[in-house]
């Protein structure tokens, strides 16, 4: 029992100490740490313990979409590595740990790659609308500003946690002209902007995204006014679910763990689902993808 508590604590500690790390990376770091400490004798035992560790992370109040996709990726990593090296469990674990570090490093490079892909799409004089706070979008904009591109950004303040204010502050610090707008002004500013750029908490199999509530509204506005809707995201956020509509999205994704016991009809959902038909392009570390290419990537991995 206390192992699980330790896992959850380690996970929360990473996120508390470093604001620049995303929940998915933190989850994978936690699991690698767990793997190092673990003393299982068989793969089956390890797998069971991993499930428990993952469950304990899902109990925390951090965005569950990112945790789900990253941990599933990690389990796939364990499975594939064990297939590669099946001499003995000890040797297998050794290679898991060394490969795990490589794996983590590759994931950390992802954000830079996304920035490089999306960079050319920010041109001089353009106006960009973004929603809430996204580290990838922020980094891409910072890099574009460093390359002496002049552009302005509109940021929604994004209720209920007002994370857009934080985004605006960071953009200000980087000397990028930005305006904080109300969520309800989305339609009002849409006609002025050239494109919409948002991050994502998760990318689902259909090529749609799960992101901070309001993204769907923004995508619909953008489609109506024929503005391109770009999603910037790392590939470890690809998650194997196929939601049909908003109601179909699992409850754990929409509400934080501590609120699941309450009367959900009285609670605000934290995320919504944007269907692929509203998305122009996805910029990922695997390349610039159209929404239909996402399922291809997922199939390649989980076949």
């Amino acid at each position, binding site marked *: 029992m206390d192992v699980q508590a330790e896992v959850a604590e380690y996970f929360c500690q990473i996120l508390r100490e470093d604001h620049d790390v995303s929940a998915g990376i933190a989850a994978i770091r936690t699991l690698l740490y767990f793997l190092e400490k673990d003393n299982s004798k068989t793969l089956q035992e390890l797998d069971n313990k991993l499930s428990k560790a993952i469950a304990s992370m899902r109990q925390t109040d951090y965005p569950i979409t990112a945790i789900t996709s990253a941990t599933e990726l990690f389990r796939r990593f364990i499975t*594939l590595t064990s297939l590669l090296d099946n001499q003995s469990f000890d040797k297998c674990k050794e290679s898991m740990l060394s490969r795990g570090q490589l794996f983590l490093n590759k994931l950390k490079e992802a954000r830079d790659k996304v920035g490089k892909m999306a960079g050319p*799409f920010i041109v001089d004089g*353009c106006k960009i609308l973004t929603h809430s706070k996204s580290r990838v979008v922020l980094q891409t904009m910072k890099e574009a500003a460093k390359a002496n591109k002049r552009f302005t950004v509109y940021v929604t303040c994004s209720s209920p946690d007002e994370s857009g204010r934080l985004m605006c502050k960071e953009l200000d610090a980087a000397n990028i002209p930005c305006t904080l707008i109300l969520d309800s002004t989305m339609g009002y500013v849409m006609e002025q902007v050239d494109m919409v750029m948002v991050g994502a908490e998760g990318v689902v199999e259909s090529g749609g995204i799960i992101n901070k509530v309001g993204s769907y509204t923004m995508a619909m506005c953008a489609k109506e006014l024929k503005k391109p809707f770009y999603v910037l995201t790392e590939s470890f956020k690809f998650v194997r679910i196929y939601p049909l509509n908003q109601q179909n999205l699992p409850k754990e994704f929409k509400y934080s763990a501590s609120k699941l016991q309450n009367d959900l009809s009285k609670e605000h959902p934290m995320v919504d689902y944007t269907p692929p038909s509203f998305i122009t*392009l996805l910029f990922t*570390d695997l390349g610039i993808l159209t*929404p239909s290419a996402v399922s291809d*990537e*997922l199939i*390649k*991995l989980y076949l």
Partner: protein
Amino acid sequence: MKADSSKEEVHPCFLRFVTDVKQGKYSGSSEITSKTLDLLKQLIADGEFSNAQGMMDTIRAHGRYLHKALPLHASVGNMARRVLKIVREEYAAGSKIIKNKSEEIDPQESLHKIITSVESGEDYSSHVPDLKSGVLEHISEFEMELETSIDNIAQQAQEHIHSNEIILTLGMSHVVESFLRKAAAHRKFDVIVVDCGPIGKGQQLAVSLAKSKINTTIIGDRAIVGIMSRVNKVIIGTHTVMANGGLRALRSCHAVALAAKHCSVPVFVLAPLYKLTPQYLCSYDQDGFNSYIAPDGVLDFSDHPTLSQIKRYCPVFDYVPPELITLFISNTGGHAPSYVYRLLSELYHPDDYEI
């Protein structure tokens, strides 16, 4: 970093080729494409290379030179990318025999690769015997594919055109011409050609179709929307297919595609695979993406009293977004616009996207 040193070493044939293209000595992109391939082939045949890396560097330097000199002819860059891919394949095949490597490494970045932590860095430095002859042979095969691509597209005509249909097309395109002719050998149908003057030469197509006994009507650009409700299918050629499935096509294509969408008429685009480029349209500001020609066709120079007060432009291209296109017909079959990304990853190596 190598750009400066390579500039001096550009093969004289390439310089002449660029001048010829700029002076309009070649008609149509298929001619430019096959000429580019000829030049690259000659480059490989003439050069002395110790390994594949050297060969690829030379090709890339020349490809970059052509791409910079002729930014609007995307197929020129595509040829360099295809040849690079051929060198990579030949090298892989050659080194497999030497090193007895059986597994093939997929060049695409994928989640699977991140997880299995495969290092993607391949080196092309080791010596492979007969690399040059292998590459040249492979290029000759590819040349054959290029030559037959228009025929291959025309072969599919019967699947797409049915009896008594009214087909709308625009401007002059060789591939559309042979496609319609092929269909006319078996079926009876009507064609409406949008003139798209002064650059489109739709009249030329209309004459040629009428000669092969196809019922042809020619209309002006402003009649596109009016006539669309009567049309069963739109079949057009294109200059380039962008990586997202959009088109850089002759001016007025966007208007045709929009009108077709409005009337729910399917739009078929005939595009041989060499027109597929890994470039994206980065901004909707079309200046960097278009070329402008002498506007005397829009407003004649003889209307001189008004000339000083009027700005005249004659852009050549339109960008057509992918959602307006129903189907691409290439020499390998029909593809939906959302499938273009897949074709790209099959045709080119991801390291060569940026040439």
